């Protein structure tokens, strides 16, 4: 166990160096000569040279990389050039992160508990119509393309529908960001949460079925325990452990993936910032976003793997 943790921790810096190296190399040299990218149509050679010196692009690659990393470690990810001229990337990210965080929090708040509950009931009522229905719903949740769901759902909920003299709606206001308790959050949070709901229902159901068919449950029943004791005390605790491993992936994936929803609803989070950065070729913003997201992703997963070993003593990492 200790050896496993040590090995994972030793591998961590290597992984982080690799991530930052690739992010830096692709971010700076991927699109071509970085000075050309920065300068755009200004091509007077003396100014190009001046910019090259100013940004340190005349230095060898290793020095540039070390400079970037040491600046990044101190929270300086460079500056925006086109979209928000002069603003530092870290300021932009810091200003927008809370919005994305709150949006994802709302999305998880409804989908996570509901997914686990549906998974448990579906496993307990295995092969009933409820189970069949839930399984179809899970496939639906995984398959429905968010990009099409957004306009269709928004149309259904946010418009007044007129049938002759009779009319209903609009049910929900949409667009923009007015805090996590405003009704505008409902639709984007619903759409973001659907995938999480599907994944958690499926995983909980599978884990629960595996536990419910195992020997110690039969023993518990044979001892004459009440069914709620068997399920609540014995099965549930063991079934929920494997879920810990996918929570990390899910949360990190949500953050990275929320830019589709943010962009559609005009929510000023990091996702829409990344999208703006992509369309206006703001490489410093894209690099910072990728670097931070990947680092957080790796850290969360490391934390969860180690946590998992503590929660479930049967796990032996070799």
């Amino acid at each position: 166990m200790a050896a496993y943790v040590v090995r994972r921790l030793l591998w961590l810096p290597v992984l982080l160096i690799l991530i930052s190296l690739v992010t830096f190399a692709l971010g700076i040299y991927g699109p071509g000569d970085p000075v050309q990218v920065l300068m755009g149509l200004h091509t007077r050679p003396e100014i190009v040279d001046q910019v090259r010196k100013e940004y340190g692009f005349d230095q060898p690659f290793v020095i540039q990389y070390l400079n970037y990393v040491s600046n990044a470690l101190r929270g300086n990810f460079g500056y925006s050039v086109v979209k928000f001229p002069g603003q530092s990337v870290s300021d932009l990210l810091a200003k927008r992160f809370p919005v994305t965080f709150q949006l994802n929090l709302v999305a998880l708040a409804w989908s996570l508990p509901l997914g686990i509950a549906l998974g448990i009931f579906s496993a307990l009522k295995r092969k009933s119509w409820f189970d069949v229905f839930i399984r179809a719903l899970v496939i639906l949740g995984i398959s429905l393309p968010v990009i099409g769901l957004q306009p269709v759902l928004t149309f259904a909920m946010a418009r007044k529908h007129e049938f002759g003299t009779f009319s209903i709606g609009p049910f929900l206001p949409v667009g923009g960001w007015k805090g996590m308790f405003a009704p505008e959050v409902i639709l984007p949070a619903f759409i973001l949460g659907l995938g999480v709901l599907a994944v958690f229902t499926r995983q909980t159901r599978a884990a629960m079925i595996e536990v419910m068919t195992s020997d110690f449950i039969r023993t518990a029943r044979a001892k004459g325990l009440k069914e709620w004791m068997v399920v609540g005390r014995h099965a549930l605790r063991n079934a929920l452990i494997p879920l810990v491993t996918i929570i990390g992936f899910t949360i990190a994936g949500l953050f990275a993936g929320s830019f589709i929803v943010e962009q559609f609803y005009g929510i000023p989070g990091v996702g829409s910032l990344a999208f703006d950065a992509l369309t206006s070729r703001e490489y410093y913003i894209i690099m910072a976003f990728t670097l931070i997201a990947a680092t957080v992703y790796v850290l969360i997963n490391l934390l969860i793997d180690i946590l998992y070993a503590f929660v479930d003593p049967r796990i032996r990492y070799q």
Partner: protein
Amino acid sequence: MISLVGRPLSVVGLVVAATTVNLPLAKIHPETKPRPAWYETWRRFARNKPALLGLMVIVLLLFTAIFAGQLAPYDYTKTNLDLSAKPPSAEHWLGTDVIGRDMLSRIIFGARSVVFVIVVVATISLSLGLVLGAAAGYFGGWVDTLISRTIDFLFAFPDLLFIFFIAATIKPGLVAGLRTLAQDNNMQWLTDFVRSGYADYLVVMIALSVLGWAGLARLVRGQILALREKEFVIGAQAVGVSNWRIMTRYLIPNSLAPILVAISMGLGGIALSEGILAYLGIGLQPPNPSWGNILADNIGRYWRTWPEMLWMIFLPFAVMAAVVFAFNFVGDGLNEALNPELQ
């Protein structure tokens, strides 16, 4: 204790055995041939109606993609501003989009785009994933370390973000590089290729493949690791069966069930990613049709009302959802057919 329990049981067992021996329960018909193993699997699969329906949708998709040129009633790039956003009619069965292009033709050619991506990405990621995953699991040691650490590294980036990043950084450079290469060497076909917008597509496919193989390789590696210790593999090694033969004849066929399921679901994921990337403007470039960019075009600048909504947004959405559904239902059906004890 054990003997107390064991004795009456064994007595019962003997009695049962003695009574059944004389009964002609298993009558052997010499004329019936033993059915191949896959037949049972197929029978279980065919009992699953959604899975069968999914298979039909996939066949229809392939048919549409192959014969798109013959099926489409119009040129998918032909615009006609007199017919902007018109409802379905006898001439245009699914109506027209904002600049008067026939929606049916665009959706039909969109099928070709999605099939193209699925085939290319699946081929690359499948072959890489199978070979590298099996190698990592079978050989262990530094091979395993190298491959597993590469997978770890690729997994460090959330999927969509990784593709997003590749598209933002490598794509402009690569496309510009191809363009200068074409100009310098006077290669007309390469110039046409870059101009057609398919060069952008190439980048997306590479990014999807790079992600795809890692997930699959991890799965294959786990399967092989579990199988490697089994007696029949150790036995084969003991009698001197070659590594390659053990891998292809012993290990891969036996680890196929979960891999097949993962692939089927993965194909749905690829279809979904293709749509999302085209929607975001990273994938296939207009005027080439992909269901994703049809959606993006049609959401457009102003908000659509009901009847327009139906043919301009709901239809591409429905087609896309149907295809992803189909792959997931088939995956689910395969899962049930291959592991009947699991469900």
